[in-house]
């Protein structure tokens, strides 16, 4: 039992700050009348901004531990946390006008969003299996509630129920795997477990048994085929304001979870989980990209496209090299930014009583609003992986990492399915630019959302032209 050093608390300043402001905003929101609800929004954005500044103040060049090394602060943690703040702030910006138009603008949305983000931060910095699990539950529990927030909608309630039940099964799988690891090592500390996995006298089969449960748990949370059933239903059933959040930031946290569990804890079993992840990646790429073609609902289409992109992230992880990990990390951050923007446009197009969910609703957008049609073009081209946008660099980095470990056939499969996937992204661009509008396509969103969406689009464009900065951070995380 080591002594507790209060100096270590300085490393958790961002987490403590988020927790404190979330509680404060929860109380302040109680005393605000309906017409002052915007104050909650501004306070939330302000707290995200200060959390960002606080995280930047932390030392990023060394690996630091706190709380008997159950908390780890490395370059990966800092970069991923900063990405989560940016994506969360963007999601809140897009969510506010949508929540107002469906009469759901409540303070709980922002508070639960902050708590979900706190869960992601805990998950990203976990160096102890119990902490990792608790961070995951904190994130998931907040997300289930957010999905169910529109409680009068039967569709949202059903989506939340599915998400909750399948999420609980996934957590159960993960916990069972962790419990066997505890039986093997007598510890839950990730470095100690990793050490005992390396030196274990147990038969390989025991380790594989634990590994298979952990892979299933991770695949459930990432939404990889065949554990993807919840993704389309949740994306479609949740209010779009929640979908934009659920679909973006948690993917970054799920990537961190996969890294901490598979690479950090079970790195010694790389040869074994590489095979499992190859199956998951190929199935995800195939099913995600092919089924997305058949969708006429844009939220459902983006959900299937998510599944396809998860395949790419898994490919980076399964390569097992530093280049592969940094490529997957780059991919997950970039993917979150692109999805954020794509759902942002869906919200932008919607208005009271009109959801803009169907692909046909985007016909002729270029005639009426050329700037936002161009933004959507940027997001779609980037998701499809067209140079010079950032999605191209992400795909290229992953493919290069896979080729380095001589999995040429896997790279070919990924490229083929990306070409298949390009079809449904290009279809939206065709509808926007080459068809004429059927309705008047009114946009009634406030200026801050338009500015945020434009910045989001320019960020995707800018990162595509100069990917070096973000790529450099991702590489330094695994150098």
């Amino acid at each position: 039992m080591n002594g507790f050093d209060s100096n270590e608390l300085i490393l958790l300043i961002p987490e403590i700050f988020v927790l404190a402001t979330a509680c404060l905003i929860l109380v302040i929101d109680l005393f605000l009348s309906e017409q002052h609800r915007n104050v909650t929004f501004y306070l939330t954005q302000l707290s995200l901004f200060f959390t960002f500044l606080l995280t930047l103040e932390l030392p990023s060049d060394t690996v630091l531990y706190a709380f008997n090394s159950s908390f780890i602060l490395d370059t990966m943690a800092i970069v991923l946390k900063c990405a989560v703040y940016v994506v969360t702030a963007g999601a809140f910006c897009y969510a506010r006008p949508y929540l107002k138009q469906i009469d759901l603008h409540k303070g709980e949305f922002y508070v639960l969003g902050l708590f979900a983000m706190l869960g992601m931060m805990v998950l990203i910095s976990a160096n102890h299996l119990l902490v990792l699990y608790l961070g995951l539950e904190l994130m998931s529990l907040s997300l289930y509630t957010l999905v169910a927030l529109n409680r009068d909608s039967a569709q949202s309630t059903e989506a939340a129920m599915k998400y909750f039940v399948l999420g609980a099964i996934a957590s159960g799988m993960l916990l069972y795997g962790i419990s066997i690891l505890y039986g093997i090592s007598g510890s839950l500390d990730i470095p100690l477990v990793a050490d005992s996995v390396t030196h274990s006298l147990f038969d390989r089969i025991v380790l594989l048994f634990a590994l298979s449960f952990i892979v299933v748990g991770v695949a459930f949370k990432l939404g990889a085929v065949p554990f993807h059933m919840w993704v389309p239903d949740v994306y479609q059933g949740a209010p779009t304001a929640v979908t934009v959040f659920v679909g973006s930031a948690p993917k970054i946290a799920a990537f961190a979870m996969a890294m901490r569990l598979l690479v950090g804890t079970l790195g010694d079993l790389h040869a074994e989980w590489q095979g499992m992840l190859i199956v998951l990646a190929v199935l995800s790429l195939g099913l995600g990209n092919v089924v997305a073609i058949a969708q006429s609902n844009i939220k459902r289409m983006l959900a299937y496209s998510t599944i396809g992109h998860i395949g790419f992230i898994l490919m980076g992880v399964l390569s097992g090299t530093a280049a592969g990990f940094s490529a997957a990390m780059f991919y997950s951050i970039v993917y979150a930014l692109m999805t954020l923007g794509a759902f942002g446009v869906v919200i932008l197009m919607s208005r009271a009583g009109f959801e803009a969910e169907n692909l046909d609703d985007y016909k002729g957008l270029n005639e009426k609003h050329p700037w936002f049609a161009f933004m959507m073009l940027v997001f779609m081209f980037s998701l499809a992986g067209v140079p010079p946008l950032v999605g191209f660099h992400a795909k290229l980095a992953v493919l290069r990492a896979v080729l380095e470990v001589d999995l040429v056939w896997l790279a070919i499969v990924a490229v083929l399915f990306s070409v298949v996937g390009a079809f449904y992204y290009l279809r939206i661009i065709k509808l926007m630019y080459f068809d004429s509008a059927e309705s008047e396509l009114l946009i009634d969103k406030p200026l801050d959302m338009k500015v945020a969406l434009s910045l989001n689009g320019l960020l995707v464009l800018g990162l595509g032209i100069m990917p070096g900065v973000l790529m450099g951070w991702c590489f330094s995380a695994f150098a």
Partner: protein
Amino acid sequence: MSFVQVIFYLFAVMMLVAALRVITVRNPVHAALFLVLTFICTSVLWLMLEAEFLAIVLVLVYVGAVMVLFLFVVMLLNINIESLREGFVQYVPVGILIALALFVQMIIIVGPNHFGLQDSVLTIGPNYFAQKNFAYPAPAAAEYSNTEMLGRAIFTDYLYPFEIAAVILLVAIIAAISLALRKRTDTKRQNPAQQIQVRKQDRLRIVKMEAEE
């Protein structure tokens, strides 16, 4: 078989049967009561592991509080069990197959082959993980306090997870309130404070009328 083993197998079998009855019995109230029995048997097993505090807490919190609430809900809500059972038969073969496969795997892997006990002294230290089988843990000394050790562990080594668990509970409260609290506008409830604060101009309207001739 020693006395301890007799007690163990007695309660273990009782627990399994009760757990099985929870999902097979038709009446939801009976299912809840079988769940109570499962918890009590579990707490006896925990007592045998010298986890006295956890055993008592399980009875007090789960049996005493959670299950009573559970029974209330079951009795207050008129749940149609038959409609919940639709499709049950359809999925039974697949379910049995998966359960059987998992069961066999568990016996082979988590069973005594790999996690068995051996009659040597347990060594805690760098060689802990190098042991294949596990020695019998030494019984705790007479003055050993389970509660104290648990408290120590929670507030030193596990302080961080403990705080996160507290935040999860807070989120659960916020979630429950925001999903379940409904302000009903159609009730005729009276608010005395508002009644007292009422002013003349809120209720009375003086209408000027032309005097009739």
